[in-house]
């Protein structure tokens, strides 16, 4: 390495932002170059000066900012909730105050409709399904008419699909909670629910069904955050053959470099012969520098060439 190359690397070296090979090369150069060592020392002093120029936040300023923020936020509408409330919003009816005469006429009309309704549908407008009542089910948060069918003697049959909100409480390893969490890892509508479900399940990864759920999330979830969470849970099983196979597939196919980086770190630990081909294959297509370096180093340590011949 020449001094002009070293000069370009020194600032990044001091921030610990060089790759393994670059750092190694620079340190070798520094061993034999007095002027570059002086430059490193000078830039270290510059760092110290800049550190001393940091403006600290004093407690008074922070407290004042917090108080002002609290006051401002109180003037805001309350925190908006997520998808549950969006569903609620979609189906809520917003009333606009009507003139007094219109209100009176409306009230009369409502009584008339109610009376008529009671006469034509003695069983009530929303009959219970044949499944019977569910005591802890709240009012529907969403409903839609599935189909409408005219019946005999002027009666009409309407089938309505309803979504009910129900709260379950328990430990993550309680069977019903566990089942719901496993189902929630595949909820296509909300990546947040999937992340949270995987997070709660990952400590039970020793159980085969949970591990399968996490393996599925790792390989198929469209959200990288969910995949990373699943990977987190599967780390301790990286020597299990099925998990290892899945990790290999992810390494070669995942679009997110963060996921691939974590997977390569896991897989190269094992130094197994069958990994050689995988790493060579990865090297032929990988663009991320860190992953490439990791592969090259692992292949070197396994006495394998970086490419196939």
């Amino acid at each position, binding site marked *: 390495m020449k001094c002009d190359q070293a000069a370009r690397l020194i600032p990044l070296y001091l*921030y610990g932002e060089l790759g393994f090979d670059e750092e190694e090369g620079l340190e070798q150069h520094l061993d034999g170059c007095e002027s570059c060592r002086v430059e490193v020392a000078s830039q270290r002093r510059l760092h110290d000066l800049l550190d001393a120029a940091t403006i600290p936040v004093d407690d008074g300023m922070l407290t004042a*900012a917090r108080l*002002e923020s609290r006051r401002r936020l109180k003037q805001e509408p309350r925190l*908006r909730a997520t998808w549950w409330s969006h569903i609620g919003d979609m189906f809520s009816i917003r009333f606009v105050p009507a003139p007094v005469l219109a209100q009176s006429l409306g009230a009369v009309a409502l009584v008339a409709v109610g009376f008529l309704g009671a006469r034509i549908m003695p069983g009530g407008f929303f009959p219970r399904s044949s499944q019977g009542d569910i005591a802890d089910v709240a009012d529907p948060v969403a409903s839609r008419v599935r189909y409408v069918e005219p019946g005999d003697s002027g009666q009409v049959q309407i089938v309505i699909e309803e979504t009910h909100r129900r709260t379950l409480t328990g430990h993550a390893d309680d069977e019903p909670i566990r089942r719901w969490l496993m189902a929630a890892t595949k909820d296509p509508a909300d990546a*947040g629910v999937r992340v949270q479900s995987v997070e709660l399940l990952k400590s039970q990864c020793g159980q085969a069904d949970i591990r399968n759920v996490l393996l599925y999330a790792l390989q198929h979830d469209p*959200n990288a955050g969910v995949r990373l969470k699943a990977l987190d849970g599967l780390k301790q099983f990286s020597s299990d053959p099925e998990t290892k196979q899945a990790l290999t597939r992810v390494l070669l196919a995942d679009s997110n470099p963060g996921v691939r980086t974590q997977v390569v770190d896991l897989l190269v630990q094992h130094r197994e012969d069958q990994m050689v081909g995988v790493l060579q294959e990865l090297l032929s297509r990988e663009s991320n520098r860190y992953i490439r370096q990791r592969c090259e180093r692992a292949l070197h340590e396994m006495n394998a060439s970086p490419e196939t011949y």
Partner: protein
Amino acid sequence: MAAPAIEIQRMDESTLIRAAQGGDERAFEELVRQYDQSVLRMALNLLRSPEDANDIYQETFLRVYRNLHKFRYDCSFHTWLYRIVTNLCLDVLRKRKVRKEESSTVSTGDGEVDRMDAVREARAHGDPQRELFSRQLDGRIRVVLSELTPRERVVFEMRHYEGMRLKAIGETLGTTEEAAKNCLFRATQKMRAALGDFT
């Protein structure tokens, strides 16, 4: 239903976020407390104006409050929050560049007063020599900071003072790690050139 205060303090970050997204105001406050000091520090060091830093603080958490329901874990909460802060700070820095207003001094009836003096005093601990050196250094640092582009300045701040990795900085600023690295390199070169005689 909101969780009891003791439970909120024990919640990890993702649980806090979900609780706040569900409308729990105390969970939101706890979430803010985990980050607000570093948000204020970053804004103060970037903008070197206590008033501007407070404005950034207020606007950041107002935006977080209004938009938390849209947070979908596509990135970490830290990245999402810092994206808001850095965008706000970049706006201020860009406006200043256009107006060529960088000085932290204001005109008063008693003449020019530096708004950062009160903050600096705490650092000098009453030692006159150290105070003079500190003033000269601060003055020089302020000049060189004003010569950095807003992006160079933000990257430098996040790497040097906030200790964020270049990869995370790139993600926060919506750019590549390589671009963040180049920004940091240019910033340090300019610093080195301007502050060489202090080292």
